[in-house]
């Protein structure tokens, strides 16, 4: 028994360790406090004069800065600051100097050297509990969206019965279905045929109670899920747009489960402000395009939304036909010729208003306006001479489209003549966003101040260091040379853990740090198992080389079993848990995997290097063992 690894195994261990060191390295470079400047609209380009205005504002305030860069394409610019304390002041100054067209956000600019980031190296992201910021959980009222759709069907059925002169009473039942009652079976059958033709998506059921013949129309389960999904994804899109306006460097907007949306805004302190912007409602207005000879007092000029038609505008009448509340749905589809279009459904009142307005205006054009609540900053002088920014809300109205009215419109109509399916999808999305299918409410909110975040990092690092030091001390005292080997493996494990977390882009949170600490404690377990096995073998009178060999072999299955079961628990934690629990689960599972590598293969390589390939009389593995 010589205990020698083939050369490739040593090289493998070395290679893994080197790669680990490489990808863990970005975390050593502390990020610079920085300001990130972006244009409010995508058309707004950041050029050198803009950057010069920003730097001038900083110099005037005596704030040291360096490393200014503009992204290729001019989408955003980065200004690094020398002092994190001045970041807030700097932000206010630059925002003031640039005005409302730009968003100035606090940022932490990585200082990873180019050669490292070219290899894909990046530091770990910090969770909100470490960086400070706000975490919101919003709930989309899916039931309200379903309710609205039912209301639409109810009105549509009422209308079709009225038009066909079928007498019946239409109402909603407790299960959220539409129920119609008729005096005769013929009426019911006639109604059934009509509804089935107009709304094939509804599932219909016949029935009777006493003198009445009834017809119940229900939305299918699939349809309800679709409505709910629609409502959530639509809110998701609107929230993404608004979050971008908040000027946060790395916001997160993510769907969670059935009907929740998580929004994380690092660095934001004023939650009231953030909530106001996130909670604003967009709206729609349908107005006729004004005739050329219309007097100035009856018309208004609006610009088109989006980059394609930037700068173009139309004159619209002041009178509003309908607003977004009347829009039940908007969907992109294709007409019979395969050209993309958007079909719009209105509720019954909307349909009436629309037909009244369009009946006599065929061949004229109708404009659709998208209205968003925005904020403008004004600076008010305080009594003590300082300036305080004040947010003034205003409604921004922009034109989405202005198609020609081909015929009198009712509750259902199409916008045709669109260039591409993409444009149709975009328009349908904007129409739905304006209609806001489902209200949202805040169900969870967590704000962590920057000082607490910094303190959490400091305390976390301190406890890892202290815990690690104690373990190192104990292991070396107890297992001597073998203990030293275990300690080297433990350090390698930490490096690999950090490298792996950085590589997969995992977020480090406070419970994540706790996971690392726990891994440190538990990672030595594999080595303890092996070492006590070796000691037993020595006691039983085996030769040192033989003891090493059997020790590792015998302990392997135990280590595997123990780690796999722990891994099962970690995976369940990840699957079921949210927020902090998830963070902990990630570090724990990564730690289990890396520790198995370092504690079994890593230590074996070292032990082989120290003891392997020669005759030895004794092993330095602690007290009580004589070999």
């Amino acid at each position, binding site marked *: 028994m010589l205990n020698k690894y083939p050369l490739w195994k040593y090289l493998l261990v070395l290679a893994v360790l080197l790669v680990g060191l490489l990808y863990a390295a970005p975390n050593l470079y502390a990020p610079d406090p920085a300001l990130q400047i972006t244009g409010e609209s995508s058309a707004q380009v950041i050029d050198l004069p803009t950057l010069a205005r920003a730097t001038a504002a900083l110099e005037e305030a005596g704030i040291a800065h360096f490393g200014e860069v503009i992204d290729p394409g001019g989408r955003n610019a980065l200004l690094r600051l020398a002092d994190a304390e001045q970041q807030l002041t700097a932000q206010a100054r630059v925002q003031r100097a640039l005005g409302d067209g730009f968003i100035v956000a606090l940022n932490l600019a990585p200082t990873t050297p180019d050669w490292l980031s070219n290899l894909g190296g990046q530091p770990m992201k910090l969770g909100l*509990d470490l960086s400070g910021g706000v975490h919101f*959980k919003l*709930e989309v009222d899916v039931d309200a969206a379903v309710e609205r759709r039912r209301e639409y069907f109810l009105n549509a059925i009422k209308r079709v019965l009225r038009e066909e002169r079928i007498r019946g009473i239409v109402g909603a039942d407790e299960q959220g279905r539409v129920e119609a009652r008729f005096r005769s079976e013929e009426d019911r059958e006639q109604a059934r045929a009509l509804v089935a033709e107009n709304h094939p998506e509804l599932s219909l059921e016949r029935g009777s109670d006493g003198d009445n013949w009834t017809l119940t129309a229900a939305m299918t389960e699939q349809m309800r899920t679709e409505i709910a999904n629609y409502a959530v994804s639509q809110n998701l899109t609107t929230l993404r747009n608004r979050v971008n306006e908040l000027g946060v460097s790395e916001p997160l907007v993510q769907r969670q489960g059935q009907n929740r949306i998580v929004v994380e805004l690092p660095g934001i302190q004023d*939650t*009231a402000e953030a*909530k106001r912007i996130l909670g604003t409602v967009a709206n729609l207005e349908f107005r006729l395009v004004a005739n050329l000879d219309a007097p100035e007092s009856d018309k208004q000029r609006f610009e088109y939304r989006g980059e394609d038609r930037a700068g173009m505008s139309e004159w619209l009448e002041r009178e509003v036909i309908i607003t977004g509340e009347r829009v039940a749905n908007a969907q992109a589809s294709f007409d019979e010729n395969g050209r993309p279009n958007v079909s719009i459904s209105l509720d019954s009142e909307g349909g009436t208003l629309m037909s009244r307005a369009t009946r006599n205006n065929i061949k004229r054009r109708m404009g659709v306006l998208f209205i968003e609540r925005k904020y403008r900053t004004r600076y008010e002088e305080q009594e003590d001479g300082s300036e305080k920014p004040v947010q003034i809300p205003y409604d921004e109205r922009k034109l989405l489209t202005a198609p020609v009215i081909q015929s009198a419109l009712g509750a259902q109509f199409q916008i045709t003549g669109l260039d591409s399916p993409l444009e149709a999808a975009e328009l349908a999305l904007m129409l739905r966003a304006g209609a806001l299918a489902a209200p949202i409410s*805040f*169900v*969870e*909110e*967590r*704000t*962590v*101040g920057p*000082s*607490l975040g910094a303190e*959490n990092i400091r*305390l976390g690092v*301190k*406890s890892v260091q202290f*815990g690690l030091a*104690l*373990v190192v001390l*104990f*292991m070396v005292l*107890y297992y001597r040379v073998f203990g030293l080997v275990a300690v080297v493996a433990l350090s390698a494990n930490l490096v690999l853990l950090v490298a792996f977390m950085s590589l997969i882009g995992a977020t480090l949170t*406070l*419970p994540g*740090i*706790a996971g690392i*600490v*726990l891994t*440190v*404690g*538990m990672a*030595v*377990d594999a080595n*303890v198992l092996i070492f*006590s096995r070796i000691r037993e073998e020595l006691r039983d009178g085996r030769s040192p080389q033989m003891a090493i060999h059997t020790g590792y072999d015998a302990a392997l*299955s*135990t280590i595997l*079993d*123990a780690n*796999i*079961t*722990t891994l*099962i*628990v*970690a995976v*369940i*934690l990840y699957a*079921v*848990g*949210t*927020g*902090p*629990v998830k963070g*902990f*689960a990630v570090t*724990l599972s990564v730690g289990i995997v890396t520790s198995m590598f370092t504690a079994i293969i890593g230590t074996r390589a070292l032990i082989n290097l120290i003891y392997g390939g020669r005759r030895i009389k004794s092993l330095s593995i602690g007290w009580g063992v004589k070999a």
Partner: protein
Amino acid sequence: MKVINFMGQRKLALAFSALLLIIAIGSLATRQLQWGLDFTGGTLVEVHYSETANLGGIRDLLDTGGYSGAIVVSFGSDRDVMIRLPQGHTDKDGMQLLRLLQDNFDGSVELRRIEFVGPQVGDELREQGGLAMLLALGLVMLYIGFRFQFKFAVGAVAALVHDVIITLGFFSVIGLEFDLTVLAALLAVIGYSLNDTIVVSDRVRENFRKLRKADAIEVINISLSETLGRTMVTSFTTMLVLASLAIFGGEMINGFAVALLVGVVVGTYSSIYVVANTLVLLGVSKEDLALPVKEGAEQDDLTP
């Protein structure tokens, strides 16, 4: 190696475990858990005063300011104050409360954190947490049943349930707050206790096959004695880092560290006594662990 007669004290250990379980369950039934904000819903505001905070004054201020029922305690130091509002306040109250405190204090009142959890979220979490725990226990039982034998799976799960209930009971008796991180710790306790249990079970299995003449009690005593050193060393190193986390980790992670510390102590004890006791009670024997006879081997015997 000296074989310690662990099983000689097994009746005593059984009584001890039973006593701990009764205390834990009794306390959980009567005092329940001090559910944290994550589970109850409500609002929590933590602030840092530039000078020593006057808790009584803050309480009065909040009472008159329309926040009756607020719990005001110092958190960590006498300048750090934590205020908890019961459910029924909206998500806007946290910020308003902060303004109220800032307007009524001459020095600076710095925001540390605000947490608002809606009632429906809390209920869901409690459900989810319970579900995670049951799922973990079930899967683990399956894995051990598959890798070892059914009696070992029962032993392992008995140990896990034992550890979880006693740790929960500890939180209930001491009145420590039970929040999401503590739940995570509890699940980690399951992982840790399992680790210990498997190491012991593994050795019991090995020795049953190796020591053909010994009876079950002897085998278990020998196995426990052999693994004792490893059990102690691992528990000790783990406790070293956990103690470090409890002392230096700060208030937000304290509950986590304490839960794990208690869990590790109980887990170490249970891997020695609860698992072994269950095995003895279930009458574990050599036959349970006989290596499955391979079909090929049987045929070899038949050939002359």
